[in-house]
């Protein structure tokens, strides 16, 4: 294809610059995870090393309880994701399509919570969980994240857009409100549910501050928190940290590759006259 348009050449250059700036840190981490410590901290830094090794990947397993961390992270991320996606879509549907007193009020209250930074609620939340004896428990990690304002907002926005005729046709077909939700509305929300699932998984999987705060016991740490605390008081071995980071990134990367086509899919209106 011949390109003569100046504008498109410029935008290509810009895209390449953005691409490099986004990809470079990942590339650095990936390559560093195969370098020995001397090559990593070498000054001036070099992207490529003289020789590569797998030792960081074996060392990380010896340095920290990786298996435990991975299990914890899976329980935390999958637990939060499953519960919050369920509740978010329930709540979003109710706020979008059910008539009840205070509907708008509750919606705005939920939306307002989106604007409160975690730093403000962090200490009260910690005290609350501590009083309930939920520090260092899976329940303590998962329950406070059982719904998210963003998820509710996203699902509500989708359900609001679905035509009322669909629900009415279903009602005439003999469905009750729960069946309408599960058999008609939810299947239509598949792309949104998958998107929300990925967002939620990513959020919890990579979450650092919250699990670090709510777990003090080594055996309850998640990957992100565990890797962050890997550094000793005086010395940090970067190679194993880089290897641990790559290991922690892999599952999300794979999931994203499989689910990305749903990110832009929206087929809900195709049976209706637009």
């Amino acid at each position, binding site marked *: 294809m011949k390109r003569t348009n100046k504008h498109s050449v410029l935008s290509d250059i810009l895209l390449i610059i953005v691409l490099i700036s986004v990809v470079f840190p990942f590339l650095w981490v990936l390559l560093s995870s195969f370098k020995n410590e001397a090559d990593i901290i070498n000054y001036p830094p070099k992207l490529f090393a003289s020789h590569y090794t797998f030792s960081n990947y074996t060392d990380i397993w010896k340095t920290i309880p990786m298996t435990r961390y991975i299990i914890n992270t899976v329980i935390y991320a999958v637990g939060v994701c499953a519960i919050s996606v369920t509740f978010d879509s329930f709540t979003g549907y109710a706020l979008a399509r059910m008539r009840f007193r205070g509907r708008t009020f509750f919606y705005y209250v939920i939306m307002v919570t989106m604007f409160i930074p975690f730093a403000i609620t962090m200490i009260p939340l910690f005290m609350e969980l501590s009083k309930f004896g939920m520090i260092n428990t899976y329940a303590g990690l998962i329950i406070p994240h059982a719904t998210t304002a963003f998820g509710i907002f996203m699902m509500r926005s989708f359900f609001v857009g679905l*035509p009322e*005729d*669909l629900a*009415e*046709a*279903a*009602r*005439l*077909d*003999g*469905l009750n409100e729960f*069946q309408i939700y599960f058999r*008609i509305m939810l*299947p*239509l929300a*598949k792309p949104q549910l998958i998107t929300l699932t990925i967002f939620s998984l990513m959020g919890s999987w990579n979450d650092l501050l919250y699990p670090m705060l709510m777990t003090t016991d080594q055996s309850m740490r998640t990957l992100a928190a565990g890797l962050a605390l890997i550094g000793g008081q005086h010395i940090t071995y970067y190679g194993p940290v880089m290897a641990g980071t790559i290991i922690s990134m892999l599952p999300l990367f794979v999931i994203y590759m499989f689910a990305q086509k749903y990110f832009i899919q929206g*087929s*809900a*209106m*195709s*049976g*209706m*006259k637009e």
Partner: protein
Amino acid sequence: MSSVSLEHIYKQYDGSDEYSVTDFNLEVKDKEFIVFVGPSGCGKSTTLRMISGLEEITKGTLKINGEVANNKAPKDRDIAMVFQNYALYPHMTVYQNMAFGLKMRKYDKDEIDKRVKHAAKILGLTEFLPKRPSALSGGQRQRVALGRAIVRDAPIFLMDEPLSNLDAKLRVSMRTEIARLHRSLDTTTIYVTHDQTEAMTMADRIVVMKDGEVQQIGTPAEVYDKPANVFVGGFIGAPPMNFFTLDFDGKYLTDADNGISLLLKPEQATKLDEAGYDGKQIILGIRPENIHVDEAFVQAHPDTVLDGEIVVSELLGNESQLYCKVKNHSYIAKVNARDHEAPGTKKTASLDLDTVHFFDPTTELVLK
């Protein structure tokens, strides 16, 4: 036997002071094709939705097959409904869409299959059964919506403007298809439309509505030939009926400002006289096809002449619509194509007094 009876039905929406439907009374007989027609917001869809159970009835009694159905759930009302925008489930195939209602009612798998395939055959949808609605055209989707109603084998069909999203040509062909289906399925059908042509061509009886109130109920011929009031006269028929507000002096109907003077037939004059309109105003209504411009007619009826000028003329092949003006009063004449003339032409027309309707200017009701 399937009948629907609406007795003094009212509808008032939450938060509204006014009734959207007021005192609606109708007896729909078995296998009848009833059309509710009226302008937007006249309450026709609301009434249909009250029959379906999708909308609550504020006051009055709805009976389906003689049983009070006010509080019956939509699914228990023995009705099938076709929506304006089809309301097909996008994530299901055509087959699944049609089978869904039966599946929910726990029909046997073989029975469902038989019914779906039969309906698909009637509607020419067999080859589309495995496809999703998104792969179909508007007309095909509307046929699937019809199919979904047909498979239910419900004795009562409700249709809410099912053709208004289709293009003009498709609308005409679907119109005949629905009429044919109605005959072959022997269902009682209530059909809502704002299109008076659909109402005229499909209905056994038409219910004309305006502002939540029934204006007239009758066969298409009755509604067309004997409109109950000015609104019905103006709404049914295209182009609409012409209206002239005229002074009655015992013999003549006149509009001095526009130079109109019509000599009534003696029996018409007597009738108006007896009704107490001598010296008062009256509204005369006449259909465009009853205003003639051919010379023979004009010469034979010199006492009902309008000396107008053509403002717009539309040649429609076999006929022509002349939009005329006599001073400040406009009227439309539907004439033979050979009488078609260009705008700006002076044209003398004559009214066929045997076909006119008289309405009271205050109540706008027809004088009988």
